C-alpha cells in the first residue's frame, strides 16, 4: 500500500496567535523515515534540477531512510550552507518538489520538510564544516550578510579563499533576521547557521555600511581582490497616496524590523517600541503581507485585514502562508485598492478609503491587471496600517560606486551565470541584482558568483 505524504504537526491556531513560537513542529524520526521511503531514488533525479543550491536530493533522502540522519545532514552541508533555513522558507513547491516525478500523479516527496528534519538533527558528533585546508588563496570581500552573501562567502571559503563579510546591521542574516518573523524562522536557527559559516574561516564584520563606513575602493586598496555585492532589496515602496505619513502607517520593513530584529514584541524588556493596533490593515498580497498580518495578531490585534488589489489567484504569497493566515483568522479583502489614509484629527490614522477593483487584461507580468470599478468606494476603520507592497534594491552601495551599470529600478546589472558586474572584480547577486525574489534564488546566485569569482581570480593568477 502506498504511504501518503507525511504532514508536520503544527501548533494550534488559537494558541499560536498568542505567542511567537514556531508554527510547524517538524517531522518525528518515524515520519521522516516514512516520507523518505516514498522517494523512488530516480536514476536521473529530476528534482535536483529544481534546486538552485545543487543539493544531492536522492542521496540525503536515502540516508534518512536508512536512519543515518547525521549523514543526511552532512550531505546537505556539502552544497548548502543554510539547510535549516531553506527547509523552512524555501518555496519548495515551486522548486525541487515541482519537478519531482511523484508530482505528476500525486503529492511530490516532501523534500523541504525532510531537509528541515535532517538539518535540525542534533544527535551524534557535529563534524565541523571543512574549510579548504588552511585558507591561502586571495582575499575576497562580501558585502551584505543575507542569504546571497552568506552562501557566496561559505562557498569561497570552501575553495580556500580568505573571506570577510561586511554587514551594515548589527546582526547577520539580512531579511532572515529583520524580515521573516520568529514564528516562521526562529532567529536562533539563523545564528547557528551563521556560526557554521564562521567556523569555515569566514570573518564577519558587523556595523559596516559599505559606501559609508568604508568604500569599495578602500576594499580593493586594502588587498581584497574581488568583491561580491549581496546588499538585497531593502528600500520600502510606498504608494504615494494621501495620509501615508500619518502616525500609525508603517512600511512592512519598519514594522517587521522593530518586532524581529529589535524584539519589540518583548517591550519594555527590550527598549524598542512598536504600535500595537487593535484593528489592523495590511496592504499587499505577498509573503511580506502575510508575515505582517500574522505578526499583528500576535501583538494582540482584534481584527487583521489584508487588502490586496488583485484576486487570490494572483497573490504572490506561498499557498502555505495564505493558509496559515486564514487559519489564524486573518480577513482577506481581495480586489481592493487603498485610495487614502484618514486622519483622526490628531495626526493618527483612523481608517482607509478604498475602491473596489476588477480584473482586466493581462499585464507585463502575465497577471490580469486590476482596474478600478467606479462607484465602489468604501471606508475600512483601522488604527494601524502596514504597507507591504514590495521593496526596491538598496541604493546605498550603487550610489557609492557610480561606475556600476544599473538596471531597472536600480538593480545592479550582473551576469546571471557568473555574477560579474560591469566593474572588473565586482560581482553581484541576490535581490540587489534581480529585484525582490526568494531566499533560495539569492543563495543560488551566491553560489554561482563564488564560482565566477574563482574563475576570475584563477585567470588573473595565470
Amino acid at each position, binding site marked *: 500500500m502506498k504511504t501518503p505524504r507525511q504532514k508536520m504537526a503544527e501548533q494550534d491556531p488559537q494558541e499560536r496567535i498568542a505567542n511567537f513560537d514556531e508554527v510547524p513542529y517538524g517531522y518525528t524520526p518515524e515520519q521522516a523515515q516514512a516520507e523518505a521511503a516514498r522517494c523512488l531514488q530516480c536514476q536521473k533525479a529530476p528534482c535536483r534540477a529544481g534546486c538552485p543550491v545543487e543539493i544531492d536530493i536522492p542521496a540525503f533522502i536515502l540516508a534518512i531512510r536508512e536512519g543515518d540522519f547525521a549523514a543526511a545532514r552532512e550531505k546537505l552541508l556539502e552544497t548548502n550552507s543554510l539547510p535549516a533555513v531553506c527547509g523552512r522558507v524555501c518555496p519548495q513547491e515551486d522548486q525541487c518538489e515541482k519537478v519531482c516525478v511523484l508530482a505528476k500523479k500525486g503529492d511530490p516527496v516532501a523534500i523541504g520538510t525532510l531537509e528541515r528534519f535532517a538539518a535540525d538533527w542534533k544527535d551524534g558528533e557535529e563534524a565541523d564544516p571543512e574549510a579548504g585546508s588552511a585558507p591561502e588563496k586571495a582575499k575576497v570581500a562580501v558585502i551584505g550578510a543575507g542569504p546571497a552573501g552568506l552562501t557566496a562567502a561559505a562557498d569561497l571559503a570552501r575553495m580556500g579563499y580568505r573571506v570577510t563579510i561586511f554587514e551594515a546591521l548589527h546582526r547577520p542574516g539580512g531579511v532572515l533576521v529583520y524580515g521573516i518573523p520568529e514564528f516562521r524562522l526562529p532567529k536562533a536557527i539563523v545564528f547557528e547557521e551563521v556560526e557554521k559559516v564562521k567556523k569555515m574561516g569566514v570573518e564577519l564584520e558587523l556595523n559596516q555600511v559599505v559606501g*559609508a563606513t*568604508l568604500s569599495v575602493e578602500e576594499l580593493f586598496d586594502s588587498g581584497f581582490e574581488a568583491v561580491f555585492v549581496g546588499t538585497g532589496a531593502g*528600500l520600502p515602496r*510606498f504608494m504615494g497616496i494621501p495620509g501615508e505619513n500619518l*502616525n500609525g502607517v508603517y512600511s512592512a520593513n519598519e514594522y517587521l524590523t522593530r518586532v524581529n530584529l529589535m524584539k519589540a514584541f518583548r517591550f*519594555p524588556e527590550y527598549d524598542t517600541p512598536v504600535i500595537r493596533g487593535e484593528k489592523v490593515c495590511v496592504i499587499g498580497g505577498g509573503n511580506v503581507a502575510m508575515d505582517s498580518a500574522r505578526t499583528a495578531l500576535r501583538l494582540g490585534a482584534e481584527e487583521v485585514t489584508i487588502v490586496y488589489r488583485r484576486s487570490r489567484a494572483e497573490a504572490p504569497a506561498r499557498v502555505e502562508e495564505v493558509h496559515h493566515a486564514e487559519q489564524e483568522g486573518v480577513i482577506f479583502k481581495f480586489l481592493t485598492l487603498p485610495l487614502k489614509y484618514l486622519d483622526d484629527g490628531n495626526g493618527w490614522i483612523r481608517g482607509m478609503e478604498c475602491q473596489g477593483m476588477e480584473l482586466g487584461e493581462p499585464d507585463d507580468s502575465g497577471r490580469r491587471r486590476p482596474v478600478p470599478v467606479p462607484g465602489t468606494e468604501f471606508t475600512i476603520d483601522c488604527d494601524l496600517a502596514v504597507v507591504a507592497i514590495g521593496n526596491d534594491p*538598496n541604493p*546605498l552601495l550603487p550610489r557609492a560606486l557610480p561606475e556600476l551599470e544599473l538596471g531597472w529600478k536600480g538593480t545592479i546589472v550582473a551576469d546571471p551565470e557568473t555574477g560579474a558586474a560591469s566593474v572588473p572584480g565586482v560581482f553581484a547577486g541576490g535581490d540587489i541584482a534581480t529585484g525582490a525574489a526568494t531566499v533560495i534564488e539569492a543563495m543560488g546566485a551566491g553560489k554561482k558568483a563564488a564560482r565566477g569569482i574563482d574563475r576570475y581570480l584563477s585567470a588573473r593568477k595565470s
Partner: protein
Amino acid sequence: MYRIVEQERLTPEAVRLRIEAPRIARRRQAGQFVVIRVDEKGERIPLTIVGSDPEAGTITLVVQEVGTSTRKLGRLRAGEAILDLTGPLGRPTEVKKWGRVACLAGGIGTAEVLPVVEAVRAAGNTTLAIVGARTRELLILEDEMRAAADGLYITTDDGSYGRHGVVTDVLLDLINDGAVPDRVYAIGPVPMMKAVADLTRPYGIPTEISLNALMVDGTGMCGCCRVTVGGETKFTCVDGPDFDAHQVDFDELVQRQKIYLGQEKRSLEEYEKCAGGCRR
C-alpha cells in the same frame, strides 16, 4: 564593541563621550551621524558626530539624556563600551563659500552645530554662531564654539547669561542692522527651527536645517524617518538630515516625533525602577 576612551559630564543632563571608531573617524564629514545600540536590549538611536580625531581613531558624541537609551549612555564611563555603532550616515552638510553665514543652535543642538561651524568657516565664510540655552547651567561647549566661530552670540531664556531671549532675536537684530547673512543654518528643537524658517523666509535667506526624525536602521531600509519636504516624502537618514527649512512640513515632523510618547515614558519608568541595574 566600541570602547569609550573619555567621558565628561557637561551639564546635569548632557555628557560628552570620546569613542574608538577608527574607520568613522577617518571618513566622517560635518552634518553626519552615527546610529548606536548601547546594549543587547537597546534600541538603535541616531547621534551627530560632533568631532573626530583621525589620528587617535576616535569620534566625539554629545548626548542629552532624555529617555532610556540616552540615560543608559549617560551612565557609561571611560573604559566601558557601546555594543554597536555604525556610520558615518546621512549626507554631509553642503559647504561652499557664500560669504556671511549664521549658524543657530538651541540646547543640545549647540553640539550638533559645532562641526558645521568649523566646516563652514574652513571654507572661507565669515561664520557667526548664535547659541541658546534655557539657563546658564545648561549652556554647553562655549569655549569650543568661541574658538570655532568668527563671532559668538549667546542667549538664555531666563537671562541668566548672555542676552535674555532666544536665538531668533539675535538673528532679527542682525537683519535689522543690515548685516543680513547670505545663508543660515540651524539645529535645535523643532519649534526653534520652525521659528528660524519663518524669520528668514520673507527675506529670502537660504536656510538649511538638520532634522531629528525618529529612526531605526539609519540606512534607508525602514522609512521610519520619513518627512515631507516640498510636498515630497524624503527619508531623513539617506536624503538628509539637512533640508531646505522653507520646504519642510514641520507640523508633520512634530506629529511623528510623538508616535511613541506613551511607550517611551513606560520604558523610562521601567528602566529607572531598577536604576539600570536589573535589566542588563
